[in-house]
């Protein structure tokens, strides 16, 4: 509708050449075949019971009813909430702080920036392995803690149900902070430096200048960072799979790992699809946020 409201450009109003349809339809067909058609199937499967053989048996909403009576599912859902808050919160705080610190050009800034966003080019599985080594009972973290006399804090980070999820979280944040920092660096660059200088001449301290001058100008970036981290956190799979596979006893289980286990290990394909639908429903609101933002960019 907005498309029609846009000022018509004479030349474009002419019929669209055939070859252009071809240009559009091929990619669209690929995406429909690889993304939308499978997604629709998942919705259908979530209403069935199916082990992959023969025909799927429709069971209505039974899978969803069972899901909410399933302790492991509820645990995974709660873990996902912790994950979204921890992963989002820590990487936003870290990324923002670093972006502010590294915003102004000075000696060494390029080096610091590169070091901090280097981890994000590694795959999540590689990141997971990097950190698994550190978390071993005799690994670096415990050895360092022992060296500074903190033996009492030493833990079996990945084997302890109280710490496993957070241990994985730290590894994931380590990788994500650089990404968020880059986003905020871009956001800061588009802020108006004269406002900051004006505030400084008015005697505002660094915190006040950040709070009342810079921060309001970052609103757009914040929305994006928020949506991106939540969508990423719902997708998280590789790093948990590489580090704990959801253990010990489901304490680091996330919706995605539980779904994978149900679907591919136990062949409860209907049940697994129901979990996938829940993940989708949770992601939907943030996908919409992102799209709305994208639309604004398009219109602007």
């Amino acid at each position: 509708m907005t498309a029609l409201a846009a000022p018509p450009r004479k030349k474009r109003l002419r019929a669209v050449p055939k070859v252009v349809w071809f240009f559009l339809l091929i990619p669209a067909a690929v995406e429909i075949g690889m993304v939308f058609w499978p997604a629709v199937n998942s919705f259908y499967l979530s209403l069935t019971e199916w082990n992959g053989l023969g025909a799927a048996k429709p069971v209505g909403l039974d899978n969803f009813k069972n899901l909410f009576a399933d302790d492991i599912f509820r645990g995974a859902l709660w873990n996902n909430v912790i994950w979204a808050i921890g992963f989002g919160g820590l990487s936003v705080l870290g990324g923002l702080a670093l972006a502010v610190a590294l915003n102004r050009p000075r000696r060494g800034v390029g080096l610091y920036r590169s070091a901090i966003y280097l981890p994000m080019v590694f795959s999540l599985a590689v990141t997971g392995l990097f950190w698994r080594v550190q978390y071993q009972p005799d690994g670096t973290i415990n050895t360092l803690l022992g060296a500074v006399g903190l033996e009492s804090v030493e833990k079996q980070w990945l084997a302890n149900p109280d710490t496993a999820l957070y241990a994985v979280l730290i590894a994931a944040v380590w990788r994500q902070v650089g990404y968020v920092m880059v986003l905020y660096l871009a956001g800061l660059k588009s802020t108006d430096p004269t406002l900051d200088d004006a505030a400084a001449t008015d005697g505002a301290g660094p915190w006040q200048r950040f709070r009342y001058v810079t921060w309001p100008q970052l609103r757009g970036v914040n929305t994006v960072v928020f949506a991106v981290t939540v969508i990423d956190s719902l997708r998280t799979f590789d790093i948990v799979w590489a580090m704990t596979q959801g253990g010990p006893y489901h304490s680091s289980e996330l919706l995605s790992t539980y779904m994978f286990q149900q679907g591919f290990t136990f062949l409860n394909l209907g049940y697994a699809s129901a979990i996938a639908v829940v993940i989708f429903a949770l992601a939907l609101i943030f996908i919409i946020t992102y799209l709305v933002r994208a639309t604004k960019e398009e219109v602007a």
Partner: protein
Amino acid sequence: MVSVPLSRRGFLAGIGGVGMASLLGACATGSDDSSAGAASTTLTLQSSLSDPDPKAALTKVVEGYSKTPVTLNTIAIETFRAQLPTYLNSGNPPDVLTWYAGSVARDYAGKGFLLDVSDLWTGNGACAGFSDALKELSTADGKQIFVPTNYYWWGVFYRKSAFQEWGVQVPTTWDEFIAVCKTIKSKGVAPISMGTGSTPWVASGWFDYLNLRINGAEFHRDLLAGKHAFDGPEVKTVMDHYRQLVEYIDPKGRSYSWQDAVTPLTAKKAGMYLIGAFITSGVPSDAVDDLDFFRVPIIDPSVPVAEEAPTDGYFASAKSKNPEGAKELLSYLASAPAQQQFIQLAKSSNLPTSQQVDTTTFAPLVQKGIKLLNESKAITQFFNRDSSDELQTTADTALTKFLDKPGDVNKILAEWQASAKKVLGS
């Protein structure tokens, strides 16, 4: 326009891999596969033997097979386990797969995934000479669907020299066993090693054995079939015994895989390890001769002695494009020379299922293992093999939780029963 460079790349992939001598078989298909359709002549053998020695051994055995080209695909056991149903269920499944005998195989047979190989078990078939127990183990709904090629025993492994240093004797009763644990602990060594980190199923070893020693094999099988409750009085007794062990188990084991947990044993930083005979492939060669094992101590002498003897082998996919070829490959793998070659190269102390293999030349440790099994009155497989992988995950959850919080045992057993019921009910 798009497919041309791709298939050329596929072809190059084959060349790129030629350097890896141990994977010649795999390379042949790396180029072969890009022209799909040749599948009916080439057989695929999907293997979960990803530890270096067994993998190399199977590669060698497969190289010795000349009737049809065979591609060997090795996928790490944890991924393999997770994906096995998907492999079997795919339109173009691998022809032959490594796996183990027991309920899991029967479960897949029940779903119609497995090829009927009954003719290998009759007449001149490769499995015709195998024992009746093995035949029964490989049977589902009156048909044989499995080809067992080796099995192994479980025992409490220790280093002879270490026991000497600590001045302890091999225990035969529960009380003696606890006393040994106490002595070893007093030397500042963890008495029991157990890697339950990425391999939580290891914790089921003690559970199975305590149940076998206290309640017997029949109860154990029935329990895993859902005929008894995990929060019943019998299992509570089992857990009371298990609880006595908790203080002696190396707490670092919770971060270890079973392989990692071998290292403290060989370094004499841990005393004993209840594990399968495959442990020998993880022990440095200079320590293997020092390695010994003893039978899990008797708790109730009136209960007939039972041992776990998990059986490994192969099954074929019902949807194989070349079922005759698959059966011929199975026959080859089950033959005495192939069994012997595999066992020797894999350094795993496994025992052959074929009675034609001369075992007198095997190491003394293996002889002892054969004797252990011959003396036992009943044989079980292992928790998951006697039940299902899905029930195994309920055991993993319950037992690792129990190791962390032995005080919560009643609550844990109630949860276990609830989740087991869900699995068995479905």
